[in-house]
């Protein structure tokens, strides 16, 4: 047992190189997260925290109808957006990975590139398309048609905006998974009598399920925490959970309640990730546990 705990020289070298970043993350990412967990049990008055341990924030959050409605609304929104991204991204990523050939890289870079423009400017662009004086409605009006009310400051507009923001992640996650997938396995399945659909269900889907899960998590999490998109595309009644969370840190200064909301946000995100990754069976996912093919 003692030998198991002893550090090898290799362990020490690995640690010397990887610990600085790890400590940085622990100190500047995880410690702050722990801080808001602590603050969520405190009380705040006028932008100051008072160490008065209580559960009031959680009681308020979980018994006030408005807050529960916002949680529910955001949940529906993120599940729908993740689902839309999933369904749309699969055929696209599949096509690029399988038939992209030498253009594979450029095709996938093109789907990923808009991500780098930043949320705010992409939402600006989307608003210019969908808004009341956006080009879509101006076009309809000029044609003598009724403007599309459905996409004017509604939850649908928010959903479309969120798909617009995060679909690159889903395409990328599935594409990267398919990149390591051996398409010859499909030939093997078909030679053994499986039709294309059957081969997809039996071979392609399960072997790329981890990649798909990563994609789902990468879309669900920022969507659940969305603030900018609902604010600028959802309109007055389109606020989501992220907006009321942000509100606690802006206008009202109710930091303790805001911290509790942050904890709930984190809990729900983690629960989602936990549930989808529960479905992963590493053996059936074709995971070899090896990074360097040794």
């Amino acid at each position: 047992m003692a030998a198991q705990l002893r550090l090898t020289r290799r362990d020490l070298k690995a640690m010397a190189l990887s610990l600085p970043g790890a400590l940085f993350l622990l100190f500047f990412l995880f410690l702050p997260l722990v801080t808001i967990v602590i603050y969520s049990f405190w009380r705040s008055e006028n932008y100051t925290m008072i160490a008065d341990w209580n559960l009031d924030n959680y009681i308020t959050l979980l018994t006030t109808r408005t807050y529960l409605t916002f949680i529910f609304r955001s949940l529906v929104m993120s599940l729908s957006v993740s689902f839309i991204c999933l369904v749309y991204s699969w055929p696209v990523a599949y096509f690029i990975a399988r038939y992209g050939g030498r253009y594979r890289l450029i095709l996938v870079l093109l789907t990923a590139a808009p991500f780098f423009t930043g949320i705010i400017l992409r939402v600006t662009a989307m608003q210019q398309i969908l808004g009341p004086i956006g080009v879509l409605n101006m076009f309809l009006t000029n044609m003598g048609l009724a403007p599309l009310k459905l996409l004017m400051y509604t939850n649908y507009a928010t959903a479309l905006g969120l798909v617009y923001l995060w679909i690159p992640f889903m395409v990328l996650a599935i594409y990267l998974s398919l990149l390591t997938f051996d398409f010859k396995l499909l030939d093997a399945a078909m030679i053994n009598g499986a039709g294309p659909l059957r081969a997809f269900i039996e071979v392609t889907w399960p072997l790329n399920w981890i990649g798909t899960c990563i994609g789902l998590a990468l879309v669900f999490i920022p969507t659940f925490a969305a603030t900018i998109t609902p604010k600028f595309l959802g309109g007055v009644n389109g606020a989501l959970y992220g907006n009321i969370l942000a509100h606690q840190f802006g206008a009202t200064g109710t930091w303790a309640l805001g911290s509790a909301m942050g904890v709930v946000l984190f809990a729900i995100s983690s629960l989602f990730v936990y549930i989808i990754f529960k479905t992963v069976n590493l053996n059936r996912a074709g995971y070899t546990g090896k990074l360097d093919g040794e």
Partner: protein
Amino acid sequence: MAAINSKDIVLRAIQVLLLVALYIFLYFPILFITYVSFVDNIIWPFPPEWTLKWYARLLSMSDFHVGLKNSVYIGLCTAVLSTLFATSAVIGLLKYRTRWRGPMILLYISPLFVPGLLIGISTLMFNANVLGMSGKLASAIVANTTEAIAFSFLVILAQLVRYDWRMDEAAMVFGARPAQVFREVTLPTIWPAILGAFLVSFILAFNNLEISFYNLGAIPTLPTIAWGTLRHGIKPELFALASVINLLVFSIIAGLFFLIQTGLVRFGYRGE
């Protein structure tokens, strides 16, 4: 190769259509506002009345220059920090196989699973109440770095997984000291991954709103200026700003792509 029948062709055609539709969905808004940024009649810009006044107005915005400077500063510092941390970590974890590799990799990519809003508010709380340093560029840089580390780590990991570390052993056997091994063998093969990570982190931190916003208070960056402007209705200056930033992002990506295509840079080159 499986035989191509009509059903396959239909399926493939549908996939192509979906891909093209995705590109239109992703690029139409961006291209459209770029177009609008050059016209005077922004509401219904057909036919266009060309103008450059939105760009002039962007340049004359009071805090534009400060914001640009701050954004570049945050972007550069974040990129340097996250690339250093990530490069060293990936090399450590891949070169020296350790039993903590799995947990370490999880730790490094975990920021991907923490939404920006949460990073923003938690670092605000932590910096303001625990460290007593709120509203400083440094706190925004630190917070952005946590997220950028994850992206840098992934970019570098994806390339270095394919690097054959026995190459380093070979160099060592032939008389290269550790520093020489790194300079002569490791670095020449992995620098594209490091450059990629640097650029990705720079762009992310440069454009970040949610993380920086909570950490900066009244200090402007380009995204916070954009946010402030957007709150007061559509401002065509923003279209000009978006166009400039898109041009920057796409020239970086195109530059990288050019390097790959011309073989000047071989990403993940394995030596086979």
